[in-house]
């Protein structure tokens, strides 16, 4: 038996096919979900993929959050179904208030695409169990609105409850600014508060992050590393063992 993991396609989703590929490569069964359908086709978990849903014209994720499928996702997430939001998916999760805080434009005002160094802060969530806490990994990052913001109280709460799942690794040689081909991918790429790259909800079933693990699952393409695969093996194990 394997797990069925749904990937929602919104108008303007871009990495839906890539997320399905990553799920398949991890050994689970990818299931395509459509934004206009309330029905989740009995999947065991859902990935909200990256992209520019509705062009991100109002705010990233703001329009998709009101789609029929999100009604069901919100409901199911609250009763414990694992949900992963990648990039635009993360933005949708904050707009839907499944995760606290909000996403704003990168502080340097440019789109940024690079292989980013991250630190795994929480290896207990449904999506990160195959990592080790403190592990440093490289995951491609590509976005325009990647700056995570929340008020101080929320940030303190996230820290206190261990809900910061990933942080950008700051340090190393970042003197060349964001456009520098930094072979190590150091630095906060967008001005996110407290270098936050990804967070989880209280229950640990909903995770959102800006970088794209689905682009780091094969040695030949994308970043050429496979540091993103554990996302998909983590959830598979959890679901199969459940």
């Amino acid at each position, binding site marked *: 038996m394997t797990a069925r993991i749904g990937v929602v396609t919104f108008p303007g989703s871009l990495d839906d096919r890539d997320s399905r590929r990553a799920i398949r490569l991890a050994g689970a069964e990818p299931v395509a979900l459509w934004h206009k359908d309330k029905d989740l086709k009995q999947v065991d978990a859902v990935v909200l993929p990256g992209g520019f849903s509705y062009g991100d014209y109002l705010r990233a994720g703001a329009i998709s959050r009101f789609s029929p499928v999100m009604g069901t996702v919100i409901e199911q997430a609250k009763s414990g179904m694992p949900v992963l939001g990648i990039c635009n998916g993360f933005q949708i999760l904050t707009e839907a208030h499944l995760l606290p805080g*909000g996403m704003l434009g990168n502080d340097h005002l440019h789109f940024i695409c690079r292989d980013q160094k991250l630190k795994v802060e929480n290896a207990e969530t449904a999506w990160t169990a195959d990592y080790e806490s403190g592990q440093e990994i490289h995951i491609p990052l590509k976005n325009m609105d990647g700056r995570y*913001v929340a008020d101080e109280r929320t940030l303190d709460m996230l820290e206190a409850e261990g809900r910061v799942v990933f942080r950008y690794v700051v340090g190393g040689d970042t003197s060349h600014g964001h456009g520098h081909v930094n072979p190590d991918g150091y630095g906060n790429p967008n001005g996110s508060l407290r270098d936050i790259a990804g967070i989880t909800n209280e229950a640990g079933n909903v995770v959102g992050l800006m970088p794209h693990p689905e682009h780091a699952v094969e040695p030949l393409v994308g970043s050429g590393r496979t540091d993103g695969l554990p996302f998909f093996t983590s959830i598979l194990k959890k679901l199969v063992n459940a």
Partner: protein
Amino acid sequence: MARVVVDVMLKPEILDPQGQAVQRALPRLGFEGISDVRQGKRFELEVDGPVDDTALARIHELAESFLANTVIEDFTVKVEEVAEAGK
């Protein structure tokens, strides 16, 4: 037909790099004496029918739930004179 304007600005405590970029450029352009710049969004809604209290209340709701993300943004709603836009 009437126009209702919704202005959405980042909350004051949130960094506004776009506004800052404008402000940083000002001296280069020879402008002095502007101590702060913030950049936000302006929505112009053309409303069919009268803009009465009910209509305004609904637009307020729309702004709160949709046009603005109140976690990070503030907004104001106002009815605009139907003057010609333009400079």
